């Protein structure tokens, strides 16, 4: 697909508008047309040059569209800063196909030196021996240490005392709004940003108020025929109630039924088909907001580049604390070292350097909307100057990641199973039926045997 731009640009640690913003609004979850690997054919055909001291780093990622363009910029910066490395990036289609291929490459022992993985998928990969741990001393040598990250996030990368994943970002679900409409609906604070909507009543009230202004919908959310959306919003709100979920091996799941019911009832009231439609797909919710038929959109910050292009008065805020505890559903793109049967120490070292450099260059990544995980970047003046990114940056401090079980995580079958409960809650059968359905799904997943267990080589 997109061949790599060959002339290396100067290190893009400076701020400023994105140079690759002209990417079309294709989304990575739209698997349409992305069936095949999009191998960027840049460095194929180069002979390994050990004599000149160059080391190869093959790198797999799942970033397409705007994310993919930002990634290329970061890779250029890394190439500039570490000319002794030869980085060969491969972009694969997002979702289940990516994780299937990564697992198979690791099983075969011929995986790339490093790859991107959602932090939430780690419990399904690290225990099965599909990944190699990082050498923290080596990483520190290249200027990256545990202290540079939000502790909660960093700890998600640890399994059995070893660090298996270095986070690049958190990508939370946030609340986008049209500032002009919000102003007319009286929802802006004195500083011109969205005032806190910190109770269910307040949130619903805001939805009705902004629906009146937009003439269409209030706060919309697309979830039908989507693999994850139903789960994302439930899980976030459930965590906001302070309730816990335990999924002991063998089951049954321990879900706080009362709190789950409270969450589904709230969502049913929000998506009542009056002020907000109940059965929107991800695409139609996005299109509805970008064309002005809805005043607010609950969506991942990864839509920021597209929305910046299509919404004139775009504002963004962390997802409000609707219930008692703050929390934003988030996942985190992290770097991992897929298992190789015969690792070359030179390449392992280069992989560490590569990961450190990518993390340190993640300001570019912040321009795409993601919240960089490396705190020296988020604390920098350059990042603080990015709007509306800095308006929701605090969402990165209270990330609600998936439960730490082997079957959860981005692009998992678990996600699409449990996502269905939301549809039950908002269409016809109601919140009680949704809680029952969710409990059934959770029980059946907890009862399943981990396919990574047993004799893993």
């Amino acid at each position: 697909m997109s061949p790599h731009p060959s002339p290396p640009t100067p290190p893009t640690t400076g701020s400023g508008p994105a140079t690759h913003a002209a990417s079309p609004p294709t989304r990575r979850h739209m698997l349409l047309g992305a069936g095949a690997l999009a191998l960027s054919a840049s460095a194929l055909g180069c002979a390994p040059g050990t004599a000149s001291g160059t080391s190869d780093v093959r790198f797999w990622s799942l970033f397409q569209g705007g994310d993919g363009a930002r990634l290329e910029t970061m890779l250029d910066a890394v190439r500039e800063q570490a000319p002794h490395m030869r980085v060969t990036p491969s972009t694969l289609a997002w979702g289940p196909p990516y994780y299937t291929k990564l697992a198979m490459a690791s099983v075969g022992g011929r995986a790339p030196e490093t790859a991107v993985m959602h932090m939430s998928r780690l419990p399904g990969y690290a225990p099965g021996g599909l990944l190699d741990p990082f050498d923290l001393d080596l990483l520190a040598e290249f200027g990256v240490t545990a202290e540079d990250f939000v502790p909660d996030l960093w700890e998600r990368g640890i399994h059995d005392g070893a660090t298996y994943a270095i986070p690049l970002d958190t990508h939370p679900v946030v609340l986008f709004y049209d500032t002009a409409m919000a102003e007319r609906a009286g929802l802006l604070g004195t500083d011109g940003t969205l005032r806190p909507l910190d109770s269910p009543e307040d949130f619903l009230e805001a939805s009705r108020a902004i629906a009146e202004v937009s003439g269409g919908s209030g706060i919309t959310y697309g979830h039908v025929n989507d693999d994850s959306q139903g789960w994302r919003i439930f899980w976030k709100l459930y965590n906001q109630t302070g309730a816990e979920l335990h999924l002991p091996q063998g089951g049954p799941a321990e879900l706080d039924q009362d709190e789950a019911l409270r969450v589904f009832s709230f969502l049913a009231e929000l998506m009542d088909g009056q002020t907000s439609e109940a059965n929107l797909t991800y695409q139609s919710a996005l299109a509805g907001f970008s064309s002005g038929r809805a005043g607010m959109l609950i969506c991942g910050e990864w839509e920021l580049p597209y929305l910046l292009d299509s919404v004139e008065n775009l504002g963004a805020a962390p997802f409000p604390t609707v219930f008692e505890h703050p929390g934003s559903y988030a996942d985190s793109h992290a770097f991992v070292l897929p298992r190789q049967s015969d690792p070359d120490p030179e390449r392992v070292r280069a992989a560490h350097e590569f990961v450190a450099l990518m993390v340190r260059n993640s300001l570019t990544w912040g321009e795409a909307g993601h919240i960089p995980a490396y705190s020296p970047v988020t604390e920098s003046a350059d990042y603080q100057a990015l709007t509306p990114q800095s308006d929701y940056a605090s969402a990165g401090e209270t990330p609600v990641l998936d439960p730490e079980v082997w079957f959860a995580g981005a692009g998992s079958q678990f996600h699409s199973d449990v996502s269905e409960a939301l549809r039950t809650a908002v269409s016809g059968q109601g919140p009680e039926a949704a809680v029952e359905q969710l409990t059934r799904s959770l029980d059946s997943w907890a009862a399943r045997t981990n396919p990574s267990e047993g004799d893993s080589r």
Partner: protein
Amino acid sequence: MTTPTETTGRVPAPDTVPVPKAAPSSRPRLWRRVTDAPLSFLMPFLLVYALFLIWPLLSGLWMSFTDVSLNGAGGAFVGAANYAEALGDPMVWRTLGNTFLFTVVTTVPLVAVALAMAVLVHTGMPGQWLWRLSFFMPFLLPVATVALVWNFLYIEDFGLFNQALRAFGMEGLGWLTDDDVALWSVALTTVWWTVGFNFLLYLAALQSIPDHLYEAAALDGAGAWARLRHITVPQLRNITVVVVLLQILASLKIFDQIYLMTGGGPGDSSRSLLLYIYDMGFTGYRFGYSAAVSYLFLAIVLLVAVVQLWLTTRRKA
């Protein structure tokens, strides 16, 4: 072949026939040419066939008796446990039901509509090439394109279909978001997309019906309807058998449109068995189980094909 008439032209002696002498030496060479040449031409195909079809078929069968996982764990022999689990798995039955429903609601129109279109075009409508082209054109599109375009048509609040319905004062439909409608929407797309292929088969068959049958019938005073009923349809029986069988097999293995358009949703209302097999194996990592389900499905498909063949051959006899 060397015939006497040919040789007489060149050889002056008419009585001494050289044929018997030449024949024994040339016949084996000829024989070898007949047998060996096709075989050597077929070898690449047979190799690929064995490598990519026979071998996976066998190793998949073995896999279905193990608990092998995508991430390399497991692999122990578990006997028929996977098959037993599959038979008791409600999702297998659910998705099998969806698959059969889809097969019925696509096969019937895909055969009937194709036949009707072919007959209409064949009866001498003006602008033949235009009809042929436009009926066949959709079939040339890649499935991803078809799914993308139709997904736009189906969008609930501003898609073309709902706009049209509303223009006539009707309620919009949740084409891909309503449990009762989604599978039918995918079927509709499939009919539009693939009907051209059957249409072409029928058109070719229509053109091979000899004209004199119609002329004779016309002389006997048969009207257009009688000619259609007593000549066209019976003459098309063989091709209909082929079309129906191909169509049933194609519809049973429905995967791509559903994967691209609804992902099996909403709920599981449009999930086909193949999609479930894919999910079990590649998203759920349970290769063994997913192989077992696919062998059950293979058995069902074979059964359908055999029954279908038996029914049609019996009718002929």
